[in-house]
């Protein structure tokens, strides 16, 4: 990965619009990583004609987990945002976030956070990290 920079949540929509005007019009993936004291959301962008890739990171504190939607700029962001919201519990403002992957799942933590521990009784070695 060549470029890797941090953005603020307030500048996110403007930064993505600038990248789209420069030629990076292909949004490859939106995902998130849970470091235990903060979370980071990642946006992967690709320029098809010049063969370049770029990665934009947004830092989120644990007390305010929300992001604005980028669905008007990139149409592929629709399902990626739904998956990220369901798996990590990040609210996306500007649209209704519905369930995508898990049906009939009541009142349990979002699965991909580090605080959701499952299956400890099947393992007889201690949890690393």
């Amino acid at each position, binding site marked *: 990965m060549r470029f890797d920079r941090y953005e603020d949540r307030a500048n996110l929509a403007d930064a993505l619009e600038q990248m789209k005007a420069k030629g990076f019009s292909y949004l490859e993936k939106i995902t998130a990583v849970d470091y235990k004291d903060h979370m980071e959301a990642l946006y992967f962008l690709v320029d098809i004609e010049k063969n370049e890739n770029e990665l934009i990171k947004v830092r989120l504190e644990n007390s305010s987990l929300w992001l604005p939607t980028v669905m008007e700029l990139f149409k592929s962001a629709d399902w990626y945002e739904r998956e990220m919201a369901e798996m990590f519990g990040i609210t996306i403002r500007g649209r209704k976030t519905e369930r995508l992957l*898990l*049906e*009939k799942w009541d009142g349990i933590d979002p*699965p991909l956070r580090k605080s959701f521990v*499952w*299956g400890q009784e*099947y*393992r007889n070695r201690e949890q690393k990290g």
Partner: protein
Amino acid sequence: MEGQEKRPYSDAAFMDSKQEMDLLVSKSLAGREVKPNVLFANLEKTTKALSSGMVKWSRKNSLWPMQFGLACCAIELMDFGSSRIDAERRGFLMFRATPRQCDVMIVAGWVTKSIVPEIKRLYEQMLSPKYVIAYGECATCGGPWFESYNIMKGIDQVLPVDVYVAGCPPKPENLFGALVKLQKKVGGEVEV
């Protein structure tokens, strides 16, 4: 109970009513000296054997399976039905999509909690006698996804299973062997 005359037969024979009837009939026939008719007795025995045996033979040689491929084991199931390992030569033809015309349900692939109501509904729509084969390790015990939060640990938590096939994925020759075992069970040659 004194004063009662001694019974002509023992208590153990009294427990079995058919044995008791046989004893009574033979006792009553013994005084008449009629030879039993060997021809009719043998005819009754052979027709009974023929009819139940013919029913079992025809049922075991024409089991129609239902397409239930959920995941990777479905690819080997498609290979099982095509030309190298031919399923049709033992009667396993007509992979049908509707449960009303099928006898066997081959569950191939891992079972998640979201799809369990659909499986139950399809199983109840099949007409009895019906059988279930659990194909592969995910349908037997949960497989490599044993620690996941969304997986049932085996299909036998939901349905009664007749034959289990182990492997990941089992080769189509293994499924052929499982089919032969199921045919032995349907034909009554194996004690359940």
